[in-house]
């Protein structure tokens, strides 16, 4: 995988263990249903929406690896158990920065996501984004998209959320819809699928400015801990980024952390162990699993498929593996 985010080429597929489609899946005739019509008073008709993948295809004639599939499962924007980090799973595109940021805001400020996204009840959804101008002033921008998503193997190809609640499988639309609206805002999935700054996505959701700090500064370990502890206590969204994928730190499957990748920081904690206080950082891989399947098998990680990508690192190990931390707010 690229590593995660570092998908190298045009077919952004972050998780190599997943089979690669051999060719574009043809749209089935049965899927060619007319898009829902917006009420007359709606400002945007679904058929007028810019569909990022389709736009790319029409303009460049480049093969789009995935066919769009209509949202015909009755999927809901938000599931019955609310917005949470575990809803987010990165798909076959180099936007770990976006997935990690969505999960971080979902964990720390779920209401920010609820307030940013609106189901228009006509098959479309409107997402409100914040951005900062040259002077650092906050401005607002909104995008409306429909629920049609690029699919592969009958699942959304990009960000997705599936989970079982009370034995019933739900698909929550919000990660997919937020990603689609973000792609539309930036021009296309292709345009936003070559890496990015997770702090910008957190800012887009919360309207708060993000700041990034290095984990490797001399003598700054305590200052960084203090900053992260305060952010954790105050429920501020956080992400962490790793260094180059060719780095030896990311070649060890035991470490279970990958290069050029963005992670959600769910929080930090201090625990008394004997007469010592140990520091830990709770991380989450936006793949919703910590390791690639092959690495999990190699190290005997039997929880890889069930832990949702969440894992805990000792402070020193966190600083060894991660190069930067971004705090929003």
């Amino acid at each position, binding site marked *: 995988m690229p590593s995660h*985010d*570092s998908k*190298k*080429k045009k077919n952004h597929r972050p998780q190599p263990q997943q089979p690669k489609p051999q060719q574009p899946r043809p749209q089935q005739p049965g899927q060619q249903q007319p898009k829902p019509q917006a009420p007359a008073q709606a400002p945007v008709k679904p058929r007028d929406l*810019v569909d*990022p993948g389709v*736009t*790319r295809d029409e*303009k*460049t004639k480049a093969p789009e690896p995935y066919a769009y599939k209509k949202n015909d499962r009755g999927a809901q924007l938000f599931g019955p158990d609310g917005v949470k980090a575990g809803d987010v799973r990165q798909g076959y595109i180099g936007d770990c*920065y976006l997935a990690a940021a969505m999960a971080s805001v979902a964990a720390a400020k779920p209401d920010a996501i609820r307030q940013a996204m609106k189901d228009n009840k006509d098959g479309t959804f409107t997402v409100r984004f914040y*951005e*900062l*101008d*040259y*002077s*650092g002033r906050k*401005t607002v*921008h909104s*995008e409306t998209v429909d629920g049609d998503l690029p699919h592969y193997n009958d699942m959304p190809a990009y960000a997705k959320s599936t989970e079982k609640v009370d034995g019933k499988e739900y698909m929550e639309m919000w990660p997919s819809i937020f990603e689609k609206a973000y792609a*539309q*805002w*930036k*021009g*296309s999935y292709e*345009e936003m699928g*070559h*890496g*990015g*700054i997770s702090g*910008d996505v957190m800012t887009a959701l919360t309207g708060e*400015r993000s*700041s*990034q*700090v*290095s984990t*490797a*500064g*001399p003598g700054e370990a305590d200052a960084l801990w203090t900053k992260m502890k305060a952010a954790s206590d105050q429920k501020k969204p956080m992400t962490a*980024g790793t*260094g*180059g*994928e060719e*780095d030896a730190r990311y070649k060890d499957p035991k470490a279970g952390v990958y290069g*050029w*990748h*963005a992670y959600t920081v769910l929080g930090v904690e201090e625990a008394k162990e004997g007469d010592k206080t140990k520091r830990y950082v709770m991380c989450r891989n936006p793949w919703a699993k910590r390791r690639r399947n092959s690495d999990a098998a190699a190290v005997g990680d039997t929880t890889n498929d069930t832990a949702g990508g969440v894992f805990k690192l000792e402070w020193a190990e966190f600083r060894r593996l991660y*190069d*930067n931390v971004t705090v929003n707010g």
Partner: protein
Amino acid sequence: MHAASAPDPAQDPTSAAAAKPICQVQVEAGGDHLARALLEATPGTHLCLQPGVHSASLTISKSLTLHGNADGVILQGSGRDSVLRIDDDGVALRLENLILQGGSAQAGGGLAVYGRGKVQVVDCTFRDNVGGMVGGGAIYVRAGMFIAERCQFLNNRGRQGGALMFDMAMHADVLRCTFTGNRAEIAGAVRLSEAAEADIKASKFEDNRGDDGSTLRLSGTRSRVPTVRLDHCEVDGGTLINGPEIQGHITAKGCKLPTAWKGIAADGGGNTWRAAKP
């Protein structure tokens, strides 16, 4: 953590009104001399770096000048962060006669500017730096004012923008610089996105390639677009990509450009078009 966005003019080393710089602190090469000097320096200090290799990967949080006392003064990155980075607003930094090399960061392996301030690099060389996750192998700037004058960008690698990536809302002036052998997935030399604005004058681009074939690429969003003005620049090859989905503004005047750029860059007059080098 963010200070006021405008640098204090009295401490702004990039200000024309600033007193003629004199070396206030001499910094020996090696060890952690530079890190300690930065820690101890008061805002506005002019540090002169002695010849040799200075360990860097350092965060600049106050307005300073770093001046190489002779040719070959190297700021060496650790490979775990940018050689230099600025996180806070209100910092004015001037780099003179330095070589920044060996940095590796998600963005801006040589220099990453996140804070809104003013950064000026003069007679510097950026070589063999990596901005691997986002881009700007040599330099990534996303806020404030950036000026590069008589600089060389050699063999840097970035995901977007092998040498430079200008992002979000900022302005750049690039004057009499050379870009050689830089590589990226997108835009071998320079990438502009969002509302970034750049004036690139009297600069030369040789053998810079993105995997997408581009030397320079700009693209906007549905809320804002970038602008780049090329003035008396020379480009030996590679493509210019504007968009494709959301195009920015690009004009060229008095430039020598590959024929393939014709019609993509608005013709400001006086351009000559030639076949790209293979």
